């Protein structure tokens, strides 16, 4: 077995026992990247030199018997919207193509403390706006299970890299499903933590009230390990929750007896692919076999979540992206005589079409005369949706839905119709609207050999129950035996 095939918890053991070194481990990933990434195209930039140097340092420390974190020397890939001091953070945008961050994101500070090794920065939809990674300004990422298909998005690079074993685990960000949907389409585990659990400081903002950073991993155990590393209060993020630190690995218990799981009927009905629906019902059956009760329920107002999401997310984005003006950093047009030209031409040339579309939508819903009808109304409907979740969680410990209504679609299939693309988020978006935690866990392959994921939604700050249920499912199923085929790699 190659080193890159192991999960992180297995690698930690091998490092601690001295069976492997960080240097050989890190090198195995760069070899793998050289072998596969010309087809998958998950990385925007690799950090081979600094990674190898760091790996050797950690090995030295271990050899000398100096105290090191058990995670020391474990490689990781980072979505290219999180800032690492002294390296490029592009957000897959022409606007930030050459931007070098002068500071570290809080999650990076936390990973630095544990001496993790950065393999590189991962491709995404420009500024995290999209669900297919086709909106990267640089290149499209391909799904390792079928290279003609999208890996999902916006954290498509992060999910594809784990799936193709070009990183043992990665960080993604999720505003409306950007961790869970690509995890589902790539057959890996993706967790969007509760809003406020992980600091957003240093994550280039898309929509401030919805964005969360989370782990994309090969299995549930690694997900808990990585969440342990990144969760926690940060005084630099006013919206980060000040609460006692938890050890999520304590929830990795193979037992769901007595657990109550709700199955909202709206997500196994119209608009959901038949094979996906069947897979979810099989998961539900499995949970019942394992001793949980699964009951059909309803989240009727959930159908408005996508509209609410696009209004709120785009409004916030239109404001968050105002700072890209070609003055302090980022792309500056060559065509200017005056200040207004710098603003308008830099922004028009530096942003891609989807980003501009969302800035226009967001500006529109905030503009004079429309604010009450759209933004304010959406914030009220958001309250209605949150209340509906609260009601459901009085009865259930978890909700079970598909992560994506379909499996991976073909590259180019949906780019011409933005609204159709937006509707691909129906299962994941309501979770961000509610600020709740949600995880996608792979459960089956469809008839085309493409992965299907199911989503578990928990109460706010109750990631533990998700971990317990997800771990139990994983221990009692065998999706892991499937590996991506890298088929159809002609284009």
């Amino acid at each position, binding site marked *: 077995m190659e080193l890159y095939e192991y999960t992180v918890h297995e690698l930690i053991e091998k490092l601690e026992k001295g069976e492997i070194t960080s240097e050989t481990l890190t090198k195995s990933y760069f070899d793998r990247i050289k072998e596969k990434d010309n087809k998958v195209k998950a990385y925007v930039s690799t950090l081979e030199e600094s990674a190898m140097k760091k790996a050797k340092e950690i090995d030295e420390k271990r050899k000398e018997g100096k105290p090191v974190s058990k995670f020391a020397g474990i490689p990781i890939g980072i979505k290219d919207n999180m800032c690492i001091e002294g390296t490029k953070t592009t957000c897959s945008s022409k606007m930030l193509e050459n931007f070098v961050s002068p500071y570290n994101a809080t999650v990076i500070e936390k990973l630095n403390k544990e001496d993790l090794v950065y393999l590189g920065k991962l491709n995404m939809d420009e500024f995290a706006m999209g669900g297919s990674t086709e909106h990267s300004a640089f290149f499209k990422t391909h799904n390792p299970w079928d290279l003609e298909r999208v890996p999902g998005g916006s954290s498509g690079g992060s999910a594809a890299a784990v799936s193709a074993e070009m990183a043992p685990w990665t960080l993604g960000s999720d505003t409306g499903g950007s961790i869970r949907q690509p995890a589902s389409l790539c057959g890996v585990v993706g967790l969007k933590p509760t809003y406020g659990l992980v600091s*957003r400081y*240093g994550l*280039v903002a898309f*929509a401030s009230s919805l964005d969360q950073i989370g782990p994309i991993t090969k299995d549930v155990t690694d997900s808990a390990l990585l969440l342990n590393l990144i969760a926690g209060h940060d005084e630099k993020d*006013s919206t980060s929750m000040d609460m006692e630190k938890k050890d999520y690995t304590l929830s990795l218990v193979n037992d769901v007896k007595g657990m109550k799981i709700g199955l909202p009927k709206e997500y196994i009905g119209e608009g959901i692919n038949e094979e996906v629906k069947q897979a979810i019902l099989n998961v539900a059956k499995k949970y019942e076999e394992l001793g949980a009760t699964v009951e059909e329920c309803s989240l009727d107002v959930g159908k408005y979540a996508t509209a609410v999401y696009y209004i709120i997310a785009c*409004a916030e984005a239109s404001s968050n992206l105002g700072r*890209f003006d070609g003055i302090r950093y980022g792309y500056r047009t060559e065509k200017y005589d005056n200040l207004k030209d710098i603003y308008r031409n830099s922004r028009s040339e530096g942003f891609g079409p989807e980003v501009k579309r969302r800035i226009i939508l967001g*500006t529109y819903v*905030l503009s004079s005369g429309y604010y009450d009808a759209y933004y304010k109304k959406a914030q009220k409907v958001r309250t209605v949706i949150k209340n509906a979740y609260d009601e459901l969680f009085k009865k259930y410990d978890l909700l079970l839905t598909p992560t994506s209504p379909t499996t991976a679609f073909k590259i180019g299939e949906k780019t011409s119709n933005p609204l159709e693309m937006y509707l691909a988020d129906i299962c994941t978006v309501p979770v961000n609207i509610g600020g709740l935690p949600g995880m996608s866990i792979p459960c089956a392959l469809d008839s085309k050999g493409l992965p299907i994921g199911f989503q578990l939604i928990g109460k706010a700050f109750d990631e533990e129950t998700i971990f317990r249920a997800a771990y139990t499912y994983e221990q009692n199923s065998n999706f892991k035996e499937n590996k991506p085929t890298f088929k159809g790699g002609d284009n």
Partner: protein
Amino acid sequence: MVRDDYEVVIGLEVHCELSTKTKIFCSCSTEFGGEPNTHCCPVCMAMPGTLPVLNEKVVEYAVKAGLATNCSIEKNSKNDRKNYFYPDSPKAYQISQFDKPLCYDGHVTIETENGEKEIRIERIHIEEDAGKLNHDEYGRGSFVDLNRAGVPLIEVVSKPDMRSSAEVEAYMRKLKSIFEYIEISDCKMEQGSLRADVNVSVRKKGAKEFGTRTEMKNMNSFRSIVRAIDYEAQRQIEEIENGNEIMQETLRWDDISGRTFSMRDKEDAQDYRYFPEPDLVAIKLSDEYIENIRKSLPELPESRKKRYIENYGLTEKAANFAVSSKYYSNLFEEATKICNNPKTVGNMIMSDIARILNEREEEPDSLKFTGKELGELVSLIDKGTISSAIAKKVLEELFNEVKMPSKIIEEKGWVQISDEGAIKEVVMKILENNAQSVADYKAGKDKALGFLVGQAMKETKGKANPQLLNKLFLEELKK
């Protein structure tokens, strides 16, 4: 100045930089000046991914300002984004407050020609200051310095209650004085830490509706504000009299030409697209928090004035003057404690100190000496060590260099001559040289005595003890 049949209506938005140590949303220093972009960090430079965290002192200071201006305090407040593109605003939005300002519905009282008048305050909210654009003369462009970006401000919005430039000046001086008393700002207008957007309109006297207003932004001297209002009111009246309509617009006041100019580059109607700042959380203030701040407020001018009149026997005029600035008031109290002569101290502040400041074109905050020096100075007069004429000279010296007055008079040899023999010599000499005045006095012209005393003072360079001088002259003249 303004025609009798018209009335000027003025409302003010006063911006006041708070004297916190750090910026409103990051830990950078608020210190004025410094090399460009050195009081900056990723947050106030709006680097991608950064987030604001509110400074607790900003909330405290704003609540202080609200309580000191009789405002109600909003217990459920929040921050909002005001979106606009300009190079001094690095995020392309200013974090401000829209519909839930921290303070609302207050007022301050000003003194006018016709007695006291209440100016209502609509609201006080917190927000961040913008950066600074520097321009060079060689056409190389403009240069953005973000040291000031993120310095905390309060914006005090008045109702359109002022009716003359004099009232505006009195109102601004009042706010300045209050903010100095409660120590939330250094209020240095020349550094821009106190400045105002001035809204001016005119209407025929008796009209019910307001006229269309124009706005002059960022005015930072009393003199300019007064001139600009007088000019703009006159201009509007002339436009109306010529049958033209006033355009609602932002004007730029040019101090050199003494005119206002239309700012044509801001032609587009602004749409700030305010919405609640999602990177910050709600501000909820408890009654206890508000009451603790209320208790911590220092004694405010109104109460001090009452005390000065009742306990110290100052005249209304002297008391008003003494409380018009924290610097005067503190000087008064400290000096009085030392010399126990409030009346002389009060008069000295109102006439001599104010006059010298005026001559030097300085504000009371630039006073370098304290009540310790002033108190000793008044004691020296009371003890007869110096005359009040010499005291004035000592005061002038104090503006140049802070030293104890006793030391100054010793160095300068200004000690009063109270030796009867020495003064008698002078008196005899003056009488001898001014036979005419002596004759006048004896013929019943009392004024002549004043002349003779004056001559003797001149002779002694003001050092003769005036009481003694008077006494000796009278003795000699009666002979």
